[in-house]
């Protein structure tokens, strides 16, 4: 970062320096711009899905039979439990109990991995029944949306792993990053709740 005298020598007014430095103050809010944007981007995908569902209602309903409600419900539960343990981890961190916070974060990652394994199993079962990406418009939406969602799950798992490392290391503990990672993971859960309703439950 530019030291003050160099900044002054570059002809920056005090206002401009202030403007440049102001980004610093916004660390906690950092993830929120991304989360709100992501929610709206996903909303645009959901609306596109609803439109196509309206146009090809029969095909969508018939193709929906290939999905297994049991898997969907199990995946939803896995993510809901992981959200619960993560919320508890944050509470433990605020209480200064970093041991419990570490275990709860690990539990969250565990449930996240359960989701990943279950989702991949579900995909392979569907593919083995001949239900693949190019089968029809519903399958395209289904594989694509769940694929983008699982990509977010992977990002979330990386963020949680980073959070776990920070919790373990007394020198790096930082509530702001913890809250960011947790918010991201809850958003992944939230999106899945909507995807579950749209793909599995709608008639």
């Amino acid at each position, binding site marked *: 970062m530019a030291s003050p005298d160099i900044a002054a020598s570059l002809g*920056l007014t005090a206002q401009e320096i202030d403007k*440049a430095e102001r980004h610093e103050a916004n660390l906690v809010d*950092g993830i929120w711009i991304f989360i709100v944007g992501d929610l709206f981007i996903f909303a645009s995908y959901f609306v596109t899905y609803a439109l196509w569902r309206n146009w090809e209602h029969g095909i969508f309903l018939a193709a929906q039979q290939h999905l297994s409600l049991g898997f969907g419900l199990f995946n939803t539960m896995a993510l809901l439990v992981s959200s619960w343990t993560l919320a508890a981890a944050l509470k433990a961190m605020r209480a200064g109990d970093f041991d419990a916070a570490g275990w709860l974060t690990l539990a969250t990652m565990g449930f996240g991995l359960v989701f990943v394994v279950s989702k991949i199993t579900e995909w392979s079962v569907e593919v083995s029944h001949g239900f693949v990406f*190019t089968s029809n418009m519903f399958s395209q939406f289904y594989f694509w949306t769940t694929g983008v969602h699982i990509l977010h799950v992977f990002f979330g798992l990386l963020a949680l792993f980073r959070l776990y490392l920070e919790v373990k290391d007394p020198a790096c503990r930082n509530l702001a990053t913890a809250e960011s990672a947790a918010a991201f993971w809850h958003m992944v859960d939230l999106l899945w709740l909507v995807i579950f309703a749209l793909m599995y439950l709608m008639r």
Partner: protein
Amino acid sequence: MTGAVPPIPSGWFAKMAWHLRHNPKADLWVAWFSIPIAYNIMGIVYFTITHMMPPPDATKNHAQIVEFFTKFGFEIRLGFGIMLVSLAFLVWANDLIGWLIMKMDIPHVKAWGYAYMIAMCGGGFTGAYMSAFTMSVASMRPDRDPAMLEVLYDLTYISFDGTMGFFLFGSLIWTYTILADKSRLFPKWFGYTCIWNFTTEFLVSPAVIVHSGPFSWNGTIAFWIDTVVYILWQIVYVFMLYYAVKRVDPPQDRFRLKRIARLTGQLTPHPA
């Protein structure tokens, strides 16, 4: 180089000349200005001159493909000529970012900067210029065998949408460096939004498989939503680079401290 630095003049062009001559970051500002210029040229070329964007239907039959290349033939070749003249500006943008990455505070920062430059410049060759050649060749002779025109047509859009890995890794590197950078050259929230940029490259992958619907290369999701998000992000990106260039130290230069001291009037001109 003798004499003290004159004060900044008021006229628009005089001001520009002053900055080119005396601003210690003159090269960075030149590179920065190339970004809005280059992206505007690209936007005009793609959307208004060549009609390459928004992409036409992937399910066109031979007769429609011939008609497309016949109708827009001259514009296509003119537009890509303009784009090819100005393409170096895009390289300036990439290398400005690569160089800014090298000024961040993370371990092995130079390797990250080189990796970014290589990835982004490499992607340009198939991601942006391949389509220029295939479109030009196709529109030169629309009376060619329609099957060959179809090959060129597919090659154009699939090379444009299908060059994913280079940009994926380039943006991934940039995202990681912004988030890991302890000097906060770029704000953290911008780093998070960079995730959209590289996720886009995953999202367009169905465009190389399906021919119609929202995931084809002219579909609602694979093209329109992606493009809207990308353009909004691009506007933010230009401003973020502006602040980063303002904040970063000038290039390491033996004469830098003297230059700066002279700018602030703390040092009388040194004998050459």
